[in-house]
């Protein structure tokens, strides 16, 4: 019980407090008023107002839907693929050896190079799916593999002696042991996939995407739109992360019922 309390206290220490957010919003407002030029730095009040104007338009929701489906789709595909390949790599050293250079290469190549290359291969509509996949896969794969390999050997020996079947081992031993690595991987990968996915859309400019909206804001020097869409991206990214992790926890809790 004491460790749970300690965890809560640690989480509270690392969490974002409302007063701190309000402080930084005041700083933003003050700097913006000091500069006095919306094109250079728009005020938070103006951003909020612009967000309100955008939120009542159909295009706003269409753009969110378009980008959300593709970036989240790329993320989910990568999460599933990394789970599969991390499992195979943990079981077969040859698979691990085969994937190692590929994963390292994907990690090392700049995202802009990928975007341009993928743009040649796939239509710009689906560019963010591929980019999001490429950003997420190495992070999730590495984390999951580490998680599988750090599974408590003593528990695995216990499972071996009691001849616990592989599906049961996965369900009751591996899942709980790998979950913290999976969650950590998700947090990092989700941030990455949203940043890279939107960057891909800005370069590929698919119709009715958030990336196109950001591109237009850049072309017309529309700073309020740029900030409003940025706020939208951050909010969707946070909301998706919370929902996804809550969904994972719910699934694991159901899975571990015996």
């Amino acid at each position: 019980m004491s460790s749970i309390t300690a965890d809560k206290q640690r989480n509270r220490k690392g969490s974002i407090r409302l007063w701190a957010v309000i402080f930084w919003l005041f700083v933003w407002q003050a700097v913006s008023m000091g500069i006095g030029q919306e094109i250079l730095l728009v005020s938070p009040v103006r951003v909020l107002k612009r967000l309100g104007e955008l939120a009542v338009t159909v295009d706003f929701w269409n753009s969110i839907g378009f980008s959300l489906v593709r970036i989240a789709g790329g993320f989910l595909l990568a999460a599933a693929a990394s789970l599969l390949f991390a499992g195979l790599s943990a079981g077969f050293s040859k698979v691990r050896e085969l994937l190692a250079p590929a994963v390292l290469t994907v990690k090392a190549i700049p995202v802009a190079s990928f975007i341009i290359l993928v743009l040649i291969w796939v239509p710009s509509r689906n560019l963010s799916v591929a980019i999001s996949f490429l950003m997420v896969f190495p992070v999730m794969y590495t984390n999951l593999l580490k998680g599988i390999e750090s599974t408590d050997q003593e528990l695995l020996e216990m499972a071996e002696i009691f001849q616990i079947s592989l599906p049961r081992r996965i369900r009751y031993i591996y899942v709980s042991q790998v979950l913290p690595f999976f969650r950590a991987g998700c947090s990092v990968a989700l941030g990455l996939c949203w940043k890279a996915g939107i960057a891909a859309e800005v370069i590929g400019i698919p119709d009715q995407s958030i990336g196109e909206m950001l591109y237009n804001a850049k072309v017309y020097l529309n700073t309020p739109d740029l900030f409003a869409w940025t706020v939208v991206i951050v909010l969707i990214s946070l909301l998706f992360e919370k929902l996804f992790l809550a969904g994972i926890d719910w699934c694991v809790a159901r899975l571990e019922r015996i």
Partner: protein
Amino acid sequence: MAIRVTGLWKSYGKKTVLQDFSAVFEEGKTTCIMAPSGKGKTTLLRILMGLEKADRGSVEGIKGKKKSVVFQEDRLCENLSTGANVRLVVKGKTGRSRQFQETMSRGFSRMGLADCISQPARELSGGMRRRAAILRALYADWDILFLDEPFKGLDIETKKKAASFVKEQCRGKTVLCVTHDEKEAQMLEAEILVL
């Protein structure tokens, strides 16, 4: 069929822990292997369970038999309830049957864990965890039971209760127990073999 161990050798680097060890463990009997700490008791058990290989020697009479164990560490799944830890080692759907649940509840009561069946293992005290590990080993489907310091950390009264329950459940079955406490061997009414 008896378990026949012949000329077992095991070293870790320069340290030899088992030196030409031979013994016969009769089927259907409880044998306590006794020795001071660090004399290779656990290593012997691990070799018999197939978790480690001996450098030399042979073991007959274990292959193909179903094994169960109380490790020196409790090795419970922290995320699962105490009852679920026991059901985990029960094959198929037997663990969910009403009959098994009733038998398991009686066992938990006998071991003083009646209120802990649905409690997560991580919330149990050291002594409770030990007893849960013993229950898990007893309720698994087994031909040979290995006990590695099974009553470690239990107070004398709890130890007596646990030993009495183990003895009752293991009557007529092959049990190999390692301990350095002669009283535990007596509680189990086991044959004693000094390593």
